[in-house]
Structure formats: structure tokens, C-alpha cells
């Protein structure tokens, strides 16, 4: 049994739980701590299980903290989270982490729920001079796409590996990146997603001449 005080976990009430695509969910809880966009929280449903980390997907000044997650085939916690209802309780930590954005020109590159920190940065006022590349398996998996489409137009790229759609690149995000020439070497490149995505994307960027010290990655583990 985890000692909530030792892990600095706090009980919060689930609100606004929704399934936004098959196996992809978002829920929120009252913002009891301040945070910086890009930070993560540790979450558990059952105090017998170690908490796992999730990026915050809401702006710094919003009244609720939103969490985006997908159900993993062997993931006990994500299955528990998916079965939550509004009003249920979960245990959360204080936000922490250093995956921070800034106002400089940058690419935000994510797959699946890895878009969460960039959604948070956008709603925290750091969306200026950004280009977004988001990869997903289905057309419904592009969280916040309506807002990004309106805000960024042609600077918002969706790459869908499982379905075809209008104004959507049909293929993997890495395939899309391979088609991009003259990527600016003075931009920062923020990556967020699985280790496979980050490693492959980073290799492509480096092969295209981007200095490795311009690439900042957050990996889900």
C-alpha cells in the first residue's frame, strides 16, 4: 500500500471524463496546485499501485487540470482510468518536470497523447511562432484539432497512419518529416511521445541537419 503523504499524493474528484477516440480518453480535476505548462503529474487510482506519470493538457490559468491518456493493452492503470466516472476519486501528485516551452520559434512534434504538453503550452500563451506536427492512427485521435486548425492553418500538420482524411497526410509522422526539406536549423524542436517515435524522429531531424542541441524530447515511460 502506498503512503499518500510520502508520495505527496492528494485525492481529487474526476470531472468531464470523455472518450474522444477509440481507447483515448480525457478527464479533468480541480486545479489545486499551480503548474508550468509541459509538466507532468503522477496519478494512481488504487493506492496499492505505484502512480504513473501523465502530462497536463490544460492551460496554466484554467480552473481544471486535464489529463489525456490512451488505454494500453497491458496497462492496469489506464484500464482503471478508462472505467472512471465523473465524481470518482483519483490520487494525484503535485505537478513537476522541466519540459518547458518558451516564446521562441519552434516545432511541436507529437504522436497520440503526446500532444498534451503542447496543448498546455498553447493555452498558456506560448503558441506564437510554432509549427505543429501531430501523428495518430485515426482521424479522431487529434486532440484539440479544431482549435489548432483555426489558429495555425497550414502550420498545423496531421499525419494519420490508419485512415485517410482531407488535409491530412496519409502516413506516419516520420514519413511526413522525411518529405520536409529546408527545416530551419535555428528553431527548437520539441518532441513528445513514445521512445520509438522520439528516437526515430530525432534521427531524421539530425540527418536533415538540425543540431542535436536544438532538439528537446519528452518520452513516455
Amino acid at each position, binding site marked *: 500500500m502506498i503512503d499518500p503523504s510520502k508520495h505527496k499524493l492528494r485525492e481529487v474528484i474526476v470531472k468531464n471524463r470523455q472518450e474522444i477516440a477509440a481507447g483515448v480518453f480525457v478527464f479533468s480535476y480541480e486545479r489545486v496546485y499551480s503548474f508550468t505548462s509541459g509538466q507532468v503529474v503522477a496519478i494512481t487510482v488504487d493506492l496499492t499501485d505505484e502512480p504513473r506519470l501523465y502530462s497536463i493538457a490544460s492551460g496554466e490559468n484554467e480552473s481544471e487540470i486535464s489529463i489525456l491518456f490512451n488505454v494500453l493493452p497491458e496497462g492496469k492503470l489506464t484500464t482503471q482510468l478508462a472505467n472512471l466516472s465523473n465524481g470518482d476519486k483519483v490520487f494525484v501528485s503535485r505537478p513537476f518536470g522541466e519540459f518547458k516551452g518558451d516564446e521562441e520559434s519552434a516545432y511541436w512534434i507529437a504522436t497520440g497523447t503526446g500532444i498534451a504538453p503542447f496543448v498546455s503550452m498553447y493555452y498558456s500563451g506560448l503558441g506564437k511562432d510554432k509549427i505543429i506536427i501531430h501523428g495518430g*492512427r485515426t482521424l479522431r485521435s487529434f486532440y484539440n484539432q479544431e482549435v489548432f486548425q483555426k489558429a495555425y492553418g497550414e502550420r498545423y500538420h496531421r499525419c494519420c497512419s490508419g485512415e485517410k482524411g482531407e488535409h491530412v497526410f496519409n502516413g*506516419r509522422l516520420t514519413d511526413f518529416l522525411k518529405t520536409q526539406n529546408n527545416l530551419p536549423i535555428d528553431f527548437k524542436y520539441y518532441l513528445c*511521445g513514445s521512445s*520509438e517515435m*522520439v*528516437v526515430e524522429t530525432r*534521427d531524421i531531424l539530425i540527418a536533415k541537419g538540425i543540431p*542535436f542541441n536544438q532538439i*528537446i524530447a519528452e518520452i513516455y515511460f
Partner: protein
Amino acid sequence: MKDNLFGKTLQELEEVVTGEDMPSFVAKQLTDWLYKKHIQQIDDMRNLSKKNISLLKKKYQVGLIKHTSVQVSVDGTKKYLFPTANEKFIESAFIPDKNRATLCVSSQIGCKMGCLFCMTGKQGFQGHLSAGEIINQIHSLPEFDELTSVVYMGMGEPFDNLENVLKSVEILTADWGYAWSPKRITVSTIGIVPAMMRFIEVSKAHLAISLHSPFEEDRKKIMPVENVYPIPKLLDSIKSFDWNSQRRISFEYIMFKDFNDTQKHINELARILNGIKCRINLLRFHPIPDSPLASPDEKEIVEFRDRLNAKGIVTTIRTSRGEDIFAACGLLSTKKLLKELDSEKDF
């Protein structure tokens, strides 16, 4: 599919035997056969009754796994390839050195951590090893009797697979297991703080931390974990523990040319490690394909070591071993053995 007895702790074996209505002392007999007498099959457990052997064989097997290949370096290092339960592969490096012999074991198939300098990270993550699969690398090693130490520095991040790593260390060190001194074991981590603190609390084995830069912003560029568990949080956690016992903490520092090899880095290392009784191991960078990183020359590495020693930090240079067979630090990988299905991506 039968469950493996090998890799279970005494407590888990007690659950097995009581579940089969055997007396609980049979569990201790099992640990003797499994971990001290190196039997290959349940039939070899000669002090068990025929009835108990028959009961165990219905649901269980010993579960040892032989290596499928071995490569031998010109310097005597051997790299063993072991299959895993999920039909993948891991590598272990046996490193003989004068009167010592170390085995570098893997804790995961692949790795999730994505460090820029590591070959294992390039294959992504294909699964955790069970405690039995970790211990099997040691137990099934042809040179088992020569081993003086084991380091968890092979494929994977041990503290991303904490429960199985802890269980494997327990089996290695418990009286009912191999009864090794914990001083023969070093577990290496990139600094997953909550798991590391639990390891420090429940184990007495040595700890090695992959640091590679004393500066947060630089470490972020080569180690994504820095975004989650930054250096100050990592070191504050380390400092909360008393390291003045026989237990050792060391910091691993791969040298990268024009990245982490200046006097500024020496000064910052001295500042942030002040108050921690530790040592630094400098490692040469072993280049991986398409890497933007390079190693300084030998003279610069020696000078870096000497200047750290002059600052009062005990610093050594680790000898590179097995580079010609890709067994050296950061080079282990079974990516070429992954089937197409394994590389199915989520993007």
C-alpha cells in the same frame, strides 16, 4: 504453458507449495535445488517425494534458458545472446579482468529512455524481463563460477522494471538464494527518482547513476529523463540518504567532445556533488551509427580525470571492453533480431 519456478522468491515458492497442499518447508527445498544446486529439471530434486514432484510437474517447470550464441572479443570479453519468453532476445556481456570477472546483465528488452548516445535506446522498448530472465543470465552463464560481480548496466533501465530487478537482487543476496554479498552487485540508473529511492531503501547493493552532464539544460539534450527528474531533484534525493557505509554510489560520465569536457564542467561537477561520498567513472564514448556525438582524445580524458581528482572527487577511467563485438558500454542491441511485427509503431 507451464509457469517457471526459477526466478521465484522464497515467499513466492511458499505460495506455490501451499497452493498444492504441500508443507511450507518444501519451498526451502526448492530454493536449494534452484539456486544452490543448479538442477535443470524438477525430476532432479531428489529429496522431494514422488507425489510432490508429480504435483509440481503438472503446472511448473524449472525454466532455465540457455544462450543461443556467443561472440568473443580480442580482449576476452564475451557477449551472450539469450532468448526471452516473448520470443525476443537480450544480450549480456561477460568481462574477465585479471582476478576479477564481471557480468553486465540486461533488465529489459530494448529501452524506453531514448538517450542520444545509446544503441539500446535506438531499438525502442519490447518488454520487461522477469526476475527469472534477469537471474538466468547469471545462472546459465558458462563462466558462472568465475564471476566476482554483476552490474545491471546492460539493455534497459533497471528502475523502469523495479519489481523484477528488486526480486532478482533479493534472490542473488538472500541466504536461501545465492547468498552473494550485495557489494558484488551494482545497479545503474539514469535517475528515475521514486524507483531509485525505493531501491535505496530496500536493497543494499551499490548504485551507479548515469549523469553525463552537470548542467540541466545540456543533460536534457542527450537524456530526455532530465525533463522529468532533473539533476537537483535527483541529487537532493541522493543526499537524503547516508552513504557513509560500505555501500557505494558512483556517477557514470561518458565523455563527449566539446559537450561535457571543459573546466566549466569540472567546476560544476565539484559543486553539485559536494557533500556526497561518491566516485566518478569516466567512460569513453563508443560511437553509434549516425551519432552527432564524438569522444575526446585519450589525453583530454586523462586530463579531465586528473583535474577532477585534484578537486577531491575520486575519478577513474573505465577501460573499454569488447568494442569489436559491440559489447562495450552503450552498444548492446538486439534490434536486428526483431521481427517486423515487433516494430509496429503507434505513429
